[in-house]
Every structure is written in C-alpha cells, then in structure tokens.
C-alpha cells in the first residue's frame, strides 16, 4: 500500500499508536512529572489526565526550534525519516532528552501546578501513570479517522476497565477529543471530560475564594481556540483572574470566542514556517497589550507563543494559567459561596453526520455539505493561515472547501495535493463562525483529509 500522507504525519501517527505520543518520547518521560505529586489510580472515579502532549511538549518545542535552524537544508519530511533510524539505533530518546529535557521542565511544572491547585481546592483525583492511554487526538487532527476510531475504542475499554468516570485535563485539545470526538466515534461513551479551568472556576465560586499573588502583575490572556471557540469556555477564565489580587488583566484585540490562533493545530509539524508566521501575528498582537506575562491554557499554544516571542526578540514569559494560580494559592481567603453564570458559548453550526468512514459515505456527506458553500469568501477574511500564505485561494478556507468539493465530485485534482492544502489549516474554526451558509468548515476539513488519505491509498498490485 502506498500512502499520500507526508512522511512527518506517518511518523507522528505511528508514534501515537505505538509509543503514545507524537514524537515517540515514551511513557517513562510522559509520567515523570507526576512522581511524588499525585496518587495512583482514579480517586472517586476521577483522574487528572495529562495526555500525550503536555508532559512532553518541551521536546516538541526543542524540535520546532531546531527545524528553524535547519530550514533550507532539510525538510521536515526528511527529518521524519531520521527518527525511526535513530530509534533503531537506540539513541532516539537519549539524544532528545539531552537536547531538550531542560525545556520540558516548564511544561512538567505546569502539570504539577495544575494538580496542586486542584488538590488545594479540594478536588479528589488520581493519575493513571503508565496506564494512562493516549487520547490519540493527533490521529483525528491529521484525518486518520479510521485509525482514530480503532484507537478510541481501545481507550474507552481501557478507561472503563480502570474505573474512570470523569477526566480533568489541562489540555483543551484532549478535552475536546473526549467531549466531542469520542461520543461521535465510540459507542456508549459516557466518561465526563472537563478542562482544568472549568473545574477551578466552579470550585472557586463554590468556596467564594479570593487569591492573592502578593505582587502587582499586568497579564494578558491568550484564549486557545479549542478552549474558547470549540468548548465555549471563556467567562471562567475572566472570573478566575478577577479573583486574584495583584493581577491586572489586559485583553488583546482578538479574545474570547473571537480569539486569534497561535499557529498550532498540527501545523507546527506539517508546515513549520507557516505556523511561525501565524504565531508571529499573534505575539505581536499580545505584545501590544504591554503585559509583563502572557497566560494561556494549552500546551501547544504555549509552545507557539514562547517561540514566537523569542523570534520577535521579546523576553515576555508565557505561563499556563495553572502556574499563576499555584503561586497565588499561597495566600487564600475564603468567603461567601457565589454562583456566577458562565455562558457556554456555542459558536459553531451543527456538525455534519457521517454514517461511516467508508469512502462512499464520506464522499456523499462531503459532497452535500460542500455543495452548500456559496463561495462568498467570508470565511477567508479572518482565516489565519490564509493570511500567512498571502491569501492564496487554495490555502484559504473557501479554497479548501472548494477543493474538497472538487475531490469528491471527480474533478481531476489529486488526493495527495488536496491533502497538502488541507494540512495547511490549523483547525481554529474561525471560518465556521463567519460562514453565512452554516458550514462546519474545520470539521469538513478533517473529514476531507480522511477522504484524501483513504481515496489516495493505492494497493501495491495496482501500482504499475
């Protein structure tokens, strides 16, 4: 079988399936942060779920930085070929750790801070350590939906077997996977999934807590697309920050459900230069707030913002909100319980329903859905990758919808090339917010990736 997927995606997918994380760092390093911090197993059915990104994001950051240096000499797809060779030689993780282990501490620290904050708020939870199954969300992101389904079924069995009923996570991408994708792919999925911010806001309100940072700090907050737009969690962050004495929040121009992408969403792997351009746009905007510290709630956003600030030569620090709260937790005042109303923003149109992942079902739904596109181009305007790629139509949201339609309509476009254009999207969902016809554009792009991949697979015997 030959595949149309680029080498780097194959590398990421195989690592996700076999090792559990995109770079193939391994369970040992993924669980290291938790030693001595949190007890094993679900407690009252609840786990803190670290996921496969946060605990090893520092290695991705290192790799991302290195890519910039070797650009022009080597493509990311060439590099992806080296990984498996290094692994075969037994030097892969060792070298990676030596290179980037120190960067990773920052991310490990955020996880520790999050658990400490939750515990201080009286939330009972445990951690599965090496038993924690990876969410496999990267498979979904890259459109490997059949593989994702298989993986998700396995994760479901495993979590159920371990008695997990509720997941709390610091990663909004896996929170999205468990809240939105799993119910779609896994029959009888019934495990609750919450993002850290939701749990903290609820507990702080319940306890009437006020925290004190003990110093004055001007901060800005970068709403991650997955948290704000996809999960609709916006008000909670503002509530939490309003209860931390010493913190002054200065909002950036694009915020809340209209937040601007920081360039992740898988793009950092498939198209690093474009990802960097998107990040640059965002850090410039954040830096205009004049804040001393940038907060966010997503490991991938943290990576992109950290490297982004570095590239504009600014030493602005980027923290997970959890780390700020951990610091402020030293000084807590309890008051009357309050019940603020957090709006659950719902900015996307209804998701299209796919009966199955067969090529026929995929193409049928994709055709009906993309035929509804009126080509008004409203989606292009705020599309961050369109902007980063000089508004070239095929790499803008309207063009991507057109290409999916072309592919399923039998126009002479090639699956590999369509996939290449679809892979330049960060799945931020800004397009769907603008679409008058109500297309769930980023979801169609994920399914369009799937269709490109599976329709582009050519069995060996047909190759000649």
């Amino acid at each position, binding site marked *: 079988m030959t595949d149309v997927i680029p080498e780097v995606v194959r590398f990421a997918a195989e690592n996700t399936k076999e090792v559990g994380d995109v770079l193939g760092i391994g369970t040992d390093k993924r669980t290291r942060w938790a030693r001595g911090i949190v007890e094993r197993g679900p407690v009252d059915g609840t786990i803190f779920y670290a996921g496969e990104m946060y605990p090893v994001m520092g290695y991705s950051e290192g790799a991302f930085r290195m890519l910039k240096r070797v650009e022009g000499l080597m493509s990311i797809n060439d590099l992806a070929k080296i990984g498996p060779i290094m692994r075969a030689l037994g030097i892969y993780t060792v070298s990676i750790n030596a290179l980037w282990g120190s960067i990773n501490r920052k991310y490990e620290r955020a996880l520790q801070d999050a658990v400490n904050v939750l515990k201080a708020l009286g939330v009972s939870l445990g951690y599965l350590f090496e038993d924690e199954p990876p969410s496999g969300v990267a498979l979904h992101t890259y459109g490997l939906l059949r593989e994702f389904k298989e993986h998700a079924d396995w994760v479901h069995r495993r979590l159920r077997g371990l008695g997990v009923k509720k997941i709390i996570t610091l990663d909004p991408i896996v929170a999205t996977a468990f809240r939105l994708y799993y119910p779609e792919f896994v029959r009888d999925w019934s495990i609750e999934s919450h993002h850290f911010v939701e749990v903290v806001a609820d507990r702080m309100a319940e306890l009437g807590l006020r925290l004190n940072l003990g110093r004055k700090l001007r901060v800005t907050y970068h709403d991650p697309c997955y948290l704000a737009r996809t999960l609709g969690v916006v008000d909670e962050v503002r509530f939490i920050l309003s209860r931390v004495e010493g913190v002054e929040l200065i909002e950036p121009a694009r915020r809340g459900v209209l937040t601007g992408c920081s360039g992740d969403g898988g793009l950092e792997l498939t198209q690093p230069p474009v990802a960097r351009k998107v990040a640059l746009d965002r850090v410039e905007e954040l830096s205009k707030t004049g804040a001393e510290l940038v907060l966010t709630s997503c490991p991938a956003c943290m990576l992109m913002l950290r490297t982004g600030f570095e590239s504009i030569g600014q030493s602005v620090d980027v923290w997970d909100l959890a780390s700020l709260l951990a610091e402020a937790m030293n000084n807590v005042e309890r008051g009357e319980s309050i019940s603020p109303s957090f709006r659950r923003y719902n900015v996307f149109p209804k998701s299209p329903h796919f009966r199955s992942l067969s090529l026929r079902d995929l193409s049928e739904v994709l055709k009906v859905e993309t035929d509804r596109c009126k080509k008004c181009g409203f989606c292009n305007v705020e599309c961050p990758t369109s902007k980063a790629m000089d508004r070239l139509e095929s790499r803008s949201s309207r063009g991507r919808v057109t290409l999916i339609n072309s592919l399923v309509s039998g126009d002479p476009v*090639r699956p590999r090339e369509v996939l290449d254009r679809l892979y330049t999207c960060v799945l931020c969902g800004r397009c769907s917010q603008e679409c008058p016809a109500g297309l769930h554009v980023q979801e169609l792009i994920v399914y369009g990736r799937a269709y490109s991949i599976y329709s582009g697979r050519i069995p060996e015997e047909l190759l000649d």
Partner: protein
Amino acid sequence: MSDENLRRFLSELSRKVDKSKIFTEPEELYSYSLDASTEFKQPPAVVVRAGSEEDVRAVLELADRNRVPVVPRGGGTSLTGGPVPAVPNAILLDLTPMNRIEVNVDDGYAMAEAGATVLEVDKACRQYGFFFPPDPASSRIATIGGAIAENAGGLRGAKFGVMKNWILAMEVILPGGRRVRIGEPVYKWRWGPDLISLFVGSEGTLGVITKAWLKIYPLPEKVVRVLGVFDRIEEAGKAIAQIRRRGYVPMILELLDRETIEIVNESLGYNIEVAEAMVIADVDAPRESVWRIAGEVENVMRECGGRTSASDDPVEMERLYMARQGAYAAVTRAYPGVLLEDITVPLSKLSTALKELDDIRKEYGLRMPVFGHAGDGNLHPNICFDPRDEEQLRKAREMFLKTGEIAIRLGGAISGEHGIGLAKKELFLEEIKAVRGEGYVEMVRMIKQMIDPNGIMNPGKIFL
C-alpha cells in the same frame, strides 16, 4: 487559441514574472474555478497572482501577443459568473496581492490598489473621521477593482449611490500592456468623453483596473434608525416611494418581505415579529435635527399604514436590523439552491413590482423571499430551490427570467448592482431589444473592438 499559444505565453511570462506568482497545478486552478453565483464552474489554465503593475502589464502584453484570454479576478464574490472563465485555457489574473491603500485627507481622497478590499478602504478612512460610502454586503472581501468593474452598490446607496459616483481617477492596463490614467485625483476636471464611466461596470472585458483614487466623505454626525412594520407589502413600497418623493434621503432605506422574516426566524432561530413587510431607514443628520427628521420619516411610514419605532441606541439599532442582517445567511442556510435576482424599478413602480413578484411566487409555488435596497428601487428576490430536483430547477430558472421581465416592462433594469456576467446575458439582450435601440449592441462592440481588438479580455461576458 491553441495549446501552443498558451505554452508560448507561459514560457515568455516566466521570463518577466516571478515564478512564485504563476500557478498551473490543477488544485490551484480548481480553487479559482467558481464565484459566488456557484452556477458556473470552469478552471483557468493558469493563475497569475499580480503583485505589481508590471506583472499586470506583462500578462496583458504577452496574452495579447499570443491571443490568450485573460480573466481578471478580485475577491471572486461576483454573483453572476464574472470572474469565472467562459472559455477553457484562460489566464486568471488574481489582483488581490495588489492591495495598498493611502488616504489623503487633505485632498479628500483615498488611493487604493485594485486588490484592496472595499472594507479596508472604509476602515482606513475612518481613522480620519471619514468613510467610504459604497458598501456592498460583500465589502469585507470584494475588492475595489471588482467593485468598480461591477459598479457595485450597497445599503448606503440610498443616499450615496454606487461606485461610479465615487471615482475621481483610475489607472487601467489595456490589452497589449499599455497603461492609461483616466481622470485626476481632484474634485473637478473635465474632458470628454468620460472614460471612467466606460470602465465602470465593464466586468473585466476592456482592461484591468490597477488602482483608483476614490472620494471620501465625513462620517455622519448622528444616525437614528427607524423601523416600519406593514400589513401589506404594497404599503411598504408606497412608504419608500413617498419618503423619497417628499425629499428625505435616508442613508439606508431597505425593505424585507414576510417570507424573508419567516426564513430568518426559521433558520437562525430568531423571534422577530412576522409582518407582511418591514422597512428600515437610517436617518443621518446633525445632532440638532436628526430626531426631527426621523420623526418625519416615521410619520410618512404611518401615513402609509405602518407601525413604527426608532432608536439611536447601538444595541437597539442592531436589534431593529436583525432581520436584514441575517437575511442572506438565513436563505443560504435554509436552501442549497438560490438564484439571487437583482432588479431595479422606478420608485413609482415599486408597489406594482412587489405585487407582480408575489404573483410569480404564487404561480410557481417556490419560496422567494424579497429584500433589498428598495430606496434605490433595487430588489433582490431570492428564488429558493433544491438543485437536485429537476422540476424545481426548471421553475427557478423560469422565475428568474420572469422577474427580469418585470423590470424591463416597468421601465427598470435587470441588474441594479450584481452585473451581467454569464448569468444575465440573455436577459440583458432582452432589455436591450426592449429599450436601448438597435445601435446599442453595435456601439458597445465597436468600443470593445477598438480597445481589445484581439478579444482577450474576459471573453464571453455581457455580450462581448
């Protein structure tokens, strides 16, 4: 035109224009194969993204020499097939990379390159307390070049007219690559014939507009929004005609019929009071007099049978405008197939036109919400159908023609602002036959022949 011509064109072009601006991969071509009419689809043979005037000149020089057709394109939001090639093997010239804007408040103009969006021009003016009045609903993506080539209008047309009223000067590249500057960026100049008007509405059939000097206008001091609700659509038509007849010139004077309000409610989940018709007027005037004038406009509406309300509160103003704001989205969400009509009738015939449109709707039994810039006599009946249903498609096409015939019969125009393109060629010839005299077609063809003797500019459009 043979493949040989195209090959020669390409080989010569690659010596004059940077390769990064030339695209021939099918995925690029297909992403440019449609416009917002979605009715016509034809990929070009090559896409050239012009970054400068030199690029445009090179393309037009070489295309003319090699007899290859050129189709200019801005935002691709035309509703009549204008930027979709009518012939295979065309060069699509994408002007969006040319998007510089300079506002000169002292001399009262904004200079914009062809690819700048109408909205960006407006925004640039607002920094100085001015604005750019023409506001097609597509302004966030429609370009200055496209808007001139379509003589676009918009909501504010009731007071400020269409693009042609706002052009002081422009630069055009003619077939062969010659540059001409027409007009001057001053408020008065006279020499004839008026060649600006020649290019306004030319739909890319004569040359490529590369930049324009546009008049700007001071922002209104105060705006009050008046809403009139009517039990009979003819009364609404009469109210609009009477408002104008009595000398009031609201900035916006819009009409919506019952079916529009119903579809907005159904498809966007709103709860707007359903009435036979709704009229929205934005009265702009100095602070001291605005309420008096708004009151007088309300009086006219009441005399004609309407119930009115008025507000200058931004939130309330938005509420009054909800139905109009959501009209396009609601219709496109509810119906996969929509033929968007664009007729204009004399104001004194507005009531008759509305009545006759209702008769067509009843005769064919398809839904046809009508809304539009009725203050200009411009109506947009939206013929809704299911494109998979042959019978509905046939009916929709007949309704489209009959609607155009109403305009002709009542002494109006078959297109108020969307142009002729491919969609209205037949209707336009009808209109010409009915009212323009037998010399009309010949005269326009002679002009075309002189400017574009080899017929390379957007062939197959209008009747050229």
